[in-house]
Structures are given as structure tokens and as C-alpha cells.
């Protein structure tokens, strides 16, 4: 069934917290990094495929919203889905939750270009990616 998949699960380390006493914004993006590996793998872009076919994604646009701060030791998980696609891009929606409270802490919409890693250029999505996308797509309206 199409929908969000769990793409990251972890916890907030003390060293990830800043002088404000909460997780610094750079580590929210680290969660997206983990999540992107998970959802890209589900789309067929596994490390083997990356090495063999020299394909990958590069982020080109990101919109983020922070709803609730995360403190040291908080347990967290992220869910991700695809909300849009074009010939050369996929747009991912990532939602980060406080796992103990269930409260949405952060969400980000990220558009990534599909790349030829040798030519370092955006290229159309490959045939081995396209069939996998439908199981990862959600209606953009439900993603808000």
C-alpha cells in the first residue's frame, strides 16, 4: 500500500545539543540524510546500484518547518514518502516525530535531482527506478 515508510529511528545525543539546550538544526538534516538513504534504497537506488551504475541524488531545494524542540536523550523516528516527481527529480517529504510523545517535531520537503555521478549532471530517472516509485508516493495534500 502506498504511503510513508519509516526511514530513520534513533535518539538525540547530548553532543548534538547546542547552547539553547536542544538539538541543533544540523542534526535534523542528518536525520534526513539517513532517511534519504532508506527511501532511495526502497526506490531501487541501493549502494550496489550507486557503485555499478554511477547514479545518485543531489538535493536542490529544501523547505523545513520546526514544530517542537528535541532534547538530549529524546527518542525519535522519521517517516518519508515521495510527494512529487518530474523527469529528472523526486520530491521527498520527511516527518520527524518524538517517538515517546508521538508529537511531530519537524518536517521537510526536499527536491533531489537524479544524477550521473561520473558526468556530475542531472539525468532522467532510470527505468529500474520508475516502477518502484508508486509504492512510495503519497498525495501531496495528505503530506501537509
Amino acid at each position, binding site marked *: 500500500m502506498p504511503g510513508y515508510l519509516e526511514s530513520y529511528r534513533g535518539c538525540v545525543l547530548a553532543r548534538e545539543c547546542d547552547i539553547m539546550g536542544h538539538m541543533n538544526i544540523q542534526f535534523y538534516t542528518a536525520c534526513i540524510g539517513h532517511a534519504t*538513504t*532508506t527511501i532511495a534504497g526502497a526506490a531501487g537506488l541501493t549502494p550496489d546500484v550507486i557503485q555499478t551504475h554511477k547514479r545518485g541524488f543531489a538535493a536542490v531545494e529544501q523547505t523545513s518547518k520546526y514544530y517542537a524542540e528535541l532534547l538530549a536523550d529524546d527518542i525519535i523516528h522519521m517517516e518519508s514518502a515521495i510527494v512529487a516527481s518530474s523527469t529528472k527529480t523526486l520530491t521527498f517529504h520527511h516527518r520527524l516525530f518524538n*517517538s*515517546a510523545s508521538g508529537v511531530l517535531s519537524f518536517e521537510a520537503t526536499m527536491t533531489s535531482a537524479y544524477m550521473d555521478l561520473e558526468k556530475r549532471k542531472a539525468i532522467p530517472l532510470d527505468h529500474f527506478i520508475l516502477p518502484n516509485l508508486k509504492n512510495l508516493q503519497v498525495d501531496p495534500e495528505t503530506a501537509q
Partner: protein
Amino acid sequence: MSDLLSPKLIPGFRGAVETWECDQMLHMNVQFYMSKASASFAHLQNALGLTPARIRKEKKALAFQSLRIQYKSEMRMGESMHGFSGIRSVSGDIVTGFIHLFDSRKNVLSGVYEFTARYTDLLSGEKLSLPAHVRDRAAAFVDEHSDQYLPAPMKCMIMPATHLDHMFETSRSAVDVWECDAYSNMEMQPIVGRFSDAAGHVMGRVGMTREMQKERNLGSAALDYYTEFHSPVKVATSLILKSALLDRKPKNFIFGHIMINADTNKIVSNTTVLGCYFDMTARKSVPLPLEYMSIPEEQLLRFQLA
């Protein structure tokens, strides 16, 4: 959102192997398995009622007393991992459980952590009785989990928490702030990292330098750990590791380590590590280098423990 088959299993870490988590053996270093297992342990504690908010308020949580770790398949950069944990028993104040980490793409078990844990004051390190609310929650999760992998006892002598002849210094350091949790206790990841770093020194003492490994196209890998923790390690503590070759087998080396608080000279943890050499191209284990066999029997720690 979980694909767990049993409601008594608790979802744990999910994410990727970062490039910077991989060492010169071209696989994820043991300390980063540990950081992923620690994340799983935080989720396990939450399931037992030890929520992050409660831990912050009461400053008490479960802390490992012993850890048996097995590395069953190597993880390479960019791979995806996921895991779960479970409680096998609660006996007295000891909680016994496990954490499993999988290679998600191959669906192969990669990291295994069998633990005993005690409820502990995170500031003083004092061992406490298990609170009734945690005991009740844990009881709901207790299961032998007979369908889940359970390691057999280690097939070697275990390094005790004691100073032995022929042990030599393999690490000397202080515990940095960024290696600690919110209660100034050293995290598990850098503890395992210290043991990992010490391995090269033991190999060098045996006569196998990094250069020789490179010339022979050999890598080395830990396969099996057993660690006992005797007291928390606080920020700024001066630490010394002493290590030696505990034993040798046709395809395995066994190292013994003790971690010492240099200010008090007390042993804070002791570890037994069984590992192997492998061909860096074939990624298959090979017989132990002959240098190990030239070590006199009486210099093996086993000789003193017999």
C-alpha cells in the same frame, strides 16, 4: 510504523552507514555498531516506561552491566540498517535482553548485543532496585524469544577484571565532554572505540604491524566481544587501557583488555575480544599469521588463568 512480527519486540535503530563510520578495513567500525545499538536501547527503555522525560526528571535509567557482542556480517558505507530489541528475563534487579541490528537490504543479522542491565543513578552511579513500574512493564515484554538468534557462550577463556603480567598500555586518554551523555557519563560508543583502537597496539606487539597487514592484503575484524562494566566513567576521567594476547586459535586471536581509571587505579571494565584476519579482496577469513604462533605460551594471558 513497524514490520515486527512480535508485539514483544521493540523497534530500534533504522538508518544508514555513513562513509565516516567506516575504517581502514572498509567496513563500519565496531564503535558505530555500538552507537546504533545504544539508540535501540533508548527505545527499549522508553517501552519499559523509562521515557526520556522521566529519565531527565529522575536521573535514573538502565545501565549495561555486561554486553556480549557479535559481528555477524560486515556493513559497508551507504548500506541501510534496522534493528529491534527484546527482553529475555527479569531476575531480581537484573534485566536481561538483546538488541539485533540487521543489514536491511540483505535482511541479514549483522550485529548482536546480549545484555544485562541494572537500574542506576546516572549521577552517582549507584545501583538501585528495579522500580515496580519498570518491572511491571518489563514483565509484559518478557519472552525467551526462541525464534531469535541467541549466541552460544564464547569458546575461549574470558578476561577477568584483574591486572595480569604481560599486559601493556594500549591507550591513555581523558574522557572528553563530547563523548558523554547528558549526565556526564561516557557513552558506550567511545568505550568500544577505545577497545577498537587498542587492537592495533596488541597486533604490533605480536609482530604484525599495519604495514605488514597491508603488504599481505590482510584486514582484521572483531567477531565476538564480552565486556563487563563495573562503574560509570565520568567526564574528564583519565583512562588507561592495558591489553595483551589472551589466547590464539588456528583462525582467531583473542585479546584481553582492562580499562582503568588512572586516578583511582580501579578497573572500570574488562573485555575479551575474539577476532580474525581476512583477505581484503575476498573478504574471507584466513589462518592466523605465523607471528602469533611464535609468542611463547607463557606470555599468553591464558597461561596465568589456567
